[in-house]
């Protein structure tokens, strides 16, 4: 049905294109004048007027129709319908489902309720049939009126090109508005749900509390019935892993960038750069199981072995501790995340080092400086602000990264600076809070939005600072 209407609209619009184009050509030929715009613009102008108003009507009706139907029929539910919620709403849903030809819920209705349900469903389908017919007429009318309007405008002196360009400009604006509005919508929903969360848990407790256990028991005598929403352990875990990741990625990425930008021949560059960027193309979930199944056991085995070696010596206690180290630890997640960030850091830093003007290097070489002196004393100081910005961008990615930590860092919310401990991060908690069946009014679920909002604010600030630094640096040499 919907598809058929679309095809008809397309055909109608194509026809108006041809008709308007011919009309203008003939008129121009008859009067011997040159049309203001090329004939194809007149055609496109007519086609747009024929299609777009009709499309808007179609989309508007498609969105509005189910709401209209529900609103109208809800007002006169049959007397036999259940009178208590949620069964009353369920009755309406089931009637709509039957009218749409799908299977209703398994609610056991009494005999007269079943009869009323069938009658109600009939009423709904009758109404929707009427609406559909009316909608079809409205779409047709819109197409016809739009087409006629454009047809009347199809004269050689009409500025069709300008009109078409306004339409295209509008279209481009609409597409960019979609991106902006979606972002706005996401932020608003985050804020909205967070506000609901902060009605039950005070923001102060959330931001300063040190106890995180979002499981709220249904009965007071259950284990862990207290429930704690102190997010500090999560942020400590997040920043611990981010710190380890940056300690891995920053030196390796930066030195790789220095090599690529300053030492590598064009041939080496042509090979190494794409290879490094392959690393960036690996899905994070692959890094995740690499961390969980390869790096984690390897690190544990290494630490356990070291522990055995230390047993009985002066570091006996440390040896005992190391022997008990488990697979899941902040170190593994951090190191693997650092590896993931290497291409990110190196490719950004490489661009920034390359942007340092050659004249500075020439100036240094002409002073009798060696290549390493030039890099250490001139190129890197000049690139430093940009490199710092690149590091901040990488750090904000590390904070938002989810898969690796979910698989390799563990789930224990605790405040520790020990990289061999199992920790948990904000993103991991959001994942565990929102996977599976959830009720959307418990603080447990809503706390995910609180975490999301806080994380969003932190990474936003990091990104703004980083972009400021990078931009400031760019201006310096342009």
């Amino acid at each position, binding site marked *: 049905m919907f598809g058929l209407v679309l095809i008809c609209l397309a055909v109608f619009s194509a026809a108006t294109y041809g008709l308007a184009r011919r009309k203008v050509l003939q008129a121009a030929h008859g009067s011997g004048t040159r049309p203001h715009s090329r004939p194809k613009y007149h055609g496109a102008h007519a086609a747009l007027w024929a299609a777009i108003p009709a499309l808007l009507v179609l989309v508007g009706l498609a969105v509005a129709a189910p709401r209209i139907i529900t609103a109208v029929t809800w007002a006169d539910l049959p007397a036999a319908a259940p009178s208590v919620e949620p069964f009353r709403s369920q009755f309406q849903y089931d009637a709509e489902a039957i009218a749409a030809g799908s299977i209703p819920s398994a609610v056991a209705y009494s005999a007269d309720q079943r009869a009323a349900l069938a009658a109600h469903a009939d009423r709904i389908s009758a109404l929707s049939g009427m609406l559909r017919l009316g909608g079809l007429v409205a779409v047709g009318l819109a197409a016809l009126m739009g087409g006629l309007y454009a047809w009347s405008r199809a004269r050689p002196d009409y500025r069709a090109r300008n009109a078409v360009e306004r339409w295209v400009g509008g279209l481009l604006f609409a597409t960019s508005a979609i991106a902006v509005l979606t972002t706005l919508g996401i932020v608003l929903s985050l804020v909205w749900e967070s506000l609901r969360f902060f009605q039950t848990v005070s923001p102060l407790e959330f931001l300063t509390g040190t106890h995180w256990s979002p499981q709220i028991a249904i009965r007071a005598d259950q284990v862990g019935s207290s429930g704690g929403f102190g997010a500090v352990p999560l942020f400590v875990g997040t920043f611990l892993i981010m710190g380890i990741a940056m300690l891995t990625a920053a030196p390796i990425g930066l030195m790789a960038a220095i090599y690529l930008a300053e030492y590598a021949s064009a041939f080496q560059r042509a090979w190494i750069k794409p290879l490094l960027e392959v690393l960036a193309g690996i899905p994070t979930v692959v890094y995740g199981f690499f961390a969980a199944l390869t790096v984690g056991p390897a690190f544990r085995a290494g630490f356990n072995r070291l522990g055995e070696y230390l047993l009985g010596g002066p570091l006996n206690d440390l040896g005992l501790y190391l022997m008990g180290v488990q697979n899941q630890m902040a170190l593994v997640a951090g190191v693997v995340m650092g590896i993931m960030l290497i291409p990110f850091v190196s490719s950004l830093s490489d661009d920034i080092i390359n942007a340092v003007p050659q004249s*500075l*290097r*020439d*100036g*240094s070489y*002409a*002073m*009798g400086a*060696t290549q390493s002196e030039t890099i250490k*004393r001139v190129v890197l100081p000049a690139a430093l602000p940009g490199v710092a910005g690149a590091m901040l961008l990488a750090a904000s990615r590390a904070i938002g990264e989810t898969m690796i930590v979910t698989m390799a860092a563990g789930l224990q919310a605790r405040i520790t600076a020990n990289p061999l401990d199992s920790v948990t991060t904000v993103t991991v908690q959001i994942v565990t809070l929102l996977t599976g069946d959830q009720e959307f009014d418990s603080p447990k679920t809503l706390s995910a939005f609180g975490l999301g909002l806080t994380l969003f604010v932190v990474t936003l600030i990091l990104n703004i600072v980083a972009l400021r630094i990078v931009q400031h640096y760019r201006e310096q040499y342009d």
Partner: protein
Amino acid sequence: MDAPVIDTRPIVAAGPKAPAHGIKVRTRDVSVFYGDKQALSDVSLDMADRAVTALIGPSGCGKSTFLRCLNRMNDTIQGARVEGVIELDGEDVNARAVDPVALRARVGMVFQRPNPFPKSIFENVAYGPRIHGLTTSKSELQDVVEQALRRAGLWDEVADRLDQSGSSLSGGQQQRLVIARAIAVDPEVILMDEPCSALDPIATARIEELIDELRQQYCIVIVTHSMAQAARVSQQTAFFHMGQIVEIGRTDELFTNPKEQRTLDYITGRFG
């Protein structure tokens, strides 16, 4: 490489402005290739100590390429190849034993656009002495920096803001800062690649004055687009065209009485 052919012609004729000192840089049959493209062919030119030699000619004639041979800056360009003999005080600069890094400490260079490092004014000038370990104490370094800035005629303008960034200076001041940076390592030769092309006339006049003062101590080779500038600051001029030297002569003679038709055409503005 064969021994260079000794050119016995007096390159700079005697006269009131003639340099009283010997040859500092001697080049014979210098050719430069960038990949397959020959940028310079068989250039032989002697540059006197304590004098200014100007290299003039239209764009792309090879004068900057020649200049960059003298401190082996062409080494930093991939695919560049230099043939012929270039001698500094009779010593082949392209010899295997010569370290380009050490050479460049003796042959300083100033570029077309001022290129102060993104450091303070003081650190810009101190850069050379620091990397070459010329000073042993902080006060000695301060003396060297002050001397270099004084000789570049910049001291009075920057004495009270040595810790500000070098790029905060005006274009003309930046260029003098770069010259101070070059003379801080006490070179023997200073190469200048169109040092005034990015400057306004007042800053240009200031730099030209400075060049004339520096001539008392250094061998200066300057590439310039401006024939008026060559006439003002130099004692010897070489006219380059299409990668070759067309004419070499005392500046006053070359500009008043050129021997070659092409030189006459160029200095009277018929091409270039």
